């Protein structure tokens, strides 16, 4: 199956710092999502981004599908950014009727106040 690799696995930031998280995937995909899992376990949709660049406030994401990677940028980080950031890719099955989301292992972001 497809491999999804995220880096770095752990990240410690001071408030106000900027960071870039990376997601590499091993095969072509139908789509890609970024999620934030907060310390209470809730998965929050950040971006649904098969290609190109999107921005939402302090966050932005870029996917280069031809090169099989995506980047998540966090600017001016805040304590509420703590948690795990997951990249997940969508692939259709061989029959084409079903599809599935395969997750990377995540990046654990710890904020220092």
């Amino acid at each position, binding site marked *: 199956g497809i491999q999804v690799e995220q880096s770095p696995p752990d990240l410690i930031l001071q408030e106000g710092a900027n960071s870039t998280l990376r997601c590499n995937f091993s095969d072509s995909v139908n789509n890609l999502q970024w999620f934030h899992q907060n310390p209470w376990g809730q998965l929050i*949709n950040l971006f*649904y981004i098969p290609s190109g660049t999107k921005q939402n406030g302090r966050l932005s994401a870029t996917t280069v599908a031809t090169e099989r990677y995506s980047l998540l940028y966090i600017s001016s980080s805040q304590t509420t950014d703590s948690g795990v950031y997951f990249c997940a890719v969508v692939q259709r099955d061989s029959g084409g009727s079903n*599809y599935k989301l395969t*997750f990377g292992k995540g990046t654990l972001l710890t904020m220092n106040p």
Partner: protein
Amino acid sequence: SAVISQKPSRDICQRGTSLTIQCQVDSQVTMMFWYRQQPGQSLTLIATANQGSEATYESGFVIDKFPISRPNLTFSTLTVSNMSPEDSSIYLCSVSGTEGGYEQYFGPGTRLTVT
């Protein structure tokens, strides 16, 4: 997007028993999915549940251990059967197809501890 609720939000169960988790969506959806997140790990797909057909299970997951129902387009259940401490995890349901696309939205999860 869709609003998804799960019941129970958490439970502590004895080994050998079974627990049924409910997932309710506020709109009709084509695809519903069940995931497991073991402590400190990423999410792993258990099965895909389409209304009117048998659930499709991923490698390593079997119907006898994780029976799934999908009686209509807004509701699904996952049962964790004959539980052992290794089943202690967060179980999450997700949906997609609300706007004809692949984007998935997740429920708040059910935190299960097996003693």
